[in-house]
């Protein structure tokens, strides 16, 4: 058996600078599967009189990962070849897999160039196989699919994958993480639960395994916010329509530390329990531990759902809790009055004097997401510095 280079897959993106993360290894298997599908379709189209593939057709094609080039994320993808492989190629008069590699590359190029027409061997059935290839790509990632020993090829991104798959399907699978409240659960006909997303207030149905389902039941009973990661099904408009599996689920309390204040929100808020009435002025009330816990949970959920830095949290003289962020020229603050379930949000730009403010009643539907969106605008959106 010999091995020869079959293709060069160059993984581009910040996370690939030094090495190749193991979570993208399934991309190699998906690439092999894609090439096989193209080759099978190509054989069927060119040999309509044949009902079956030649013996050993699929088995003759096997890719292996020899090594990842040091200091990069360029896996060296080799094709194993045996005398049987050569015999098959000789018999068919064509190396279908070599042709298939080129069809894959050409299809990606066509999508990059927004061409209406794809290579004739890229049938709708085969196009659907792009669903599995590139599934782990994040927004800024790319895989350059190039010929062997070349660094020049077709640039495959999350957006290109979406374009290709949505030519033949109504929806596409992509990894997703959502945060929200579990609003219903059902064991029949399979383990399903529904989450109302904090960020958009939109309901999403989630199919899960039993352990995650049990966790969802607990979250429903205890009214705990959860973060759920897994595979999402997105429609042509890019809207999440459902989640088809769950790979991770955590309670809001388990969220990890983020940029900003190094102290966890819980710890910051809990420190106010020790402030006795009159701590700031004679009228300053003390803090109710239940209200503090509720406030901390709300802050954590909003920070997680809208990907905000960890805030600096302070008590207010009238018994409220205030979270603050400094983002270059912007000063952003949220004050929570837990007793009255009221929040005020402020964003002030110190260089121009621009002031944005709003107030929400937190027991009204969607108020948490409106508050979160207000904050996110000043970090990620049009107001961000």
């Amino acid at each position, binding site marked *: 058996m010999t091995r020869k280079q079959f293709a060069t897959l160059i993984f581009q993106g910040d996370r690939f600078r030094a090495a190749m993360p193991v979570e993208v290894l399934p991309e190699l298997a998906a690439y092999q599967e894609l090439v096989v599908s193209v080759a099978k379709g190509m054989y069927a189209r060119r040999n309509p009189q044949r009902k079956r593939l030649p013996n050993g057709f699929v088995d003759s094609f096997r890719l292996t990962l020899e090594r990842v080039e040091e200091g990069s994320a360029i896996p060296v993808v080799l094709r194993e070849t045996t005398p049987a492989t050569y015999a098959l190629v000789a018999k068919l008069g064509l190396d279908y897999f070599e042709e298939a590699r080129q069809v894959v590359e050409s299809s990606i190029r066509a999508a990059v160039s927004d061409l209406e027409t794809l290579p004739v061997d890229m049938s709708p059935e085969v196009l659907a196989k792009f669903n599995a290839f590139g599934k782990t790509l994040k927004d800024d990632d790319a895989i350059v699919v190039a010929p062997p020993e070349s660094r020049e090829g077709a640039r495959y991104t999350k957006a290109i994958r979406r374009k290709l798959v949505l030519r033949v399907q109504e929806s596409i699978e992509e990894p997703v993480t959502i945060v929200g409240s579990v609003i219903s659960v059902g064991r029949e006909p399979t383990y399903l639960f529904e989450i109302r997303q904090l960020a958009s207030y939109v309901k999403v149905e989630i199919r899960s395994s039993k352990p995650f389902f049990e966790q969802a039941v607990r979250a429903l009973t205890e009214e705990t916010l959860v973060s759920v990661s897994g595979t999402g099904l997105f429609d042509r408009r890019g809207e999440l329509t459902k989640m088809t599996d769950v790979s991770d689920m955590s309670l809001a309390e388990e969220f990890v530390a983020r940029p900003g*204040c190094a*102290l966890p929100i819980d710890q910051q808020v809990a*420190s106010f329990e020790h402030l006795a009435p009159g*701590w*700031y002025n004679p009228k300053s009330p003390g803090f109710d531990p239940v209200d503090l816990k509720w406030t901390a949970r709300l802050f954590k959920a909003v920070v997680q759902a809208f990907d905000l830095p960890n805030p600096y949290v302070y008590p207010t003289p009238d018994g409220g809790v*205030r979270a603050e962020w400094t983002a270059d020229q912007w*000063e952003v603050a949220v004050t929570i009055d837990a007793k009255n379930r009221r929040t005020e949000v*402020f964003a*002030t730009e*110190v260089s121009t004097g621009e002031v944005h403010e709003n107030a929400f009643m937190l027991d009204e539907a969607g108020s948490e997401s409106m508050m979160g969106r207000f904050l996110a605008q000043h970090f990620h959106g049009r107001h961000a510095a």
Partner: protein
Amino acid sequence: MTGERLTDADELLFRQVHPSWVREGRITRQAFQPTSKDELKLSVARSSVTDAKGAYEHHTLQLGLASMGSWAVSVGECRLQSLVVLEDPLTSPPHAFPDPAHAVVDFAGLSRGQRELKGAILVRAAEARGRLYPEDDDASR
């Protein structure tokens, strides 16, 4: 009694900051905003009458209130924000202790959002100047 406007732009105005209002060295933007009970007047101490240590000791030792230290803004920095600073010496009686250095920064007539803005700008100025008393740089939690 509230009196004349302060005019020396370089005069510093010391402000005491409660320990719970300093988190990892960062001061809450509330620290230089008056509370509702202050009738929108922010209490400060004048550097022409006392110093950062004197202002701190008056607050903690005489009044028995908690403070993480003295921070300051200048009269000129307040003026840039169109905030008027008025002398306001306190006498005893009616106050438990006299405070001849007492002055107020007047936030009257400003909306809540404008108070947030100007308070944040003053805190930035105070943070840039650093804590003036105690002088060590360990203003953490």
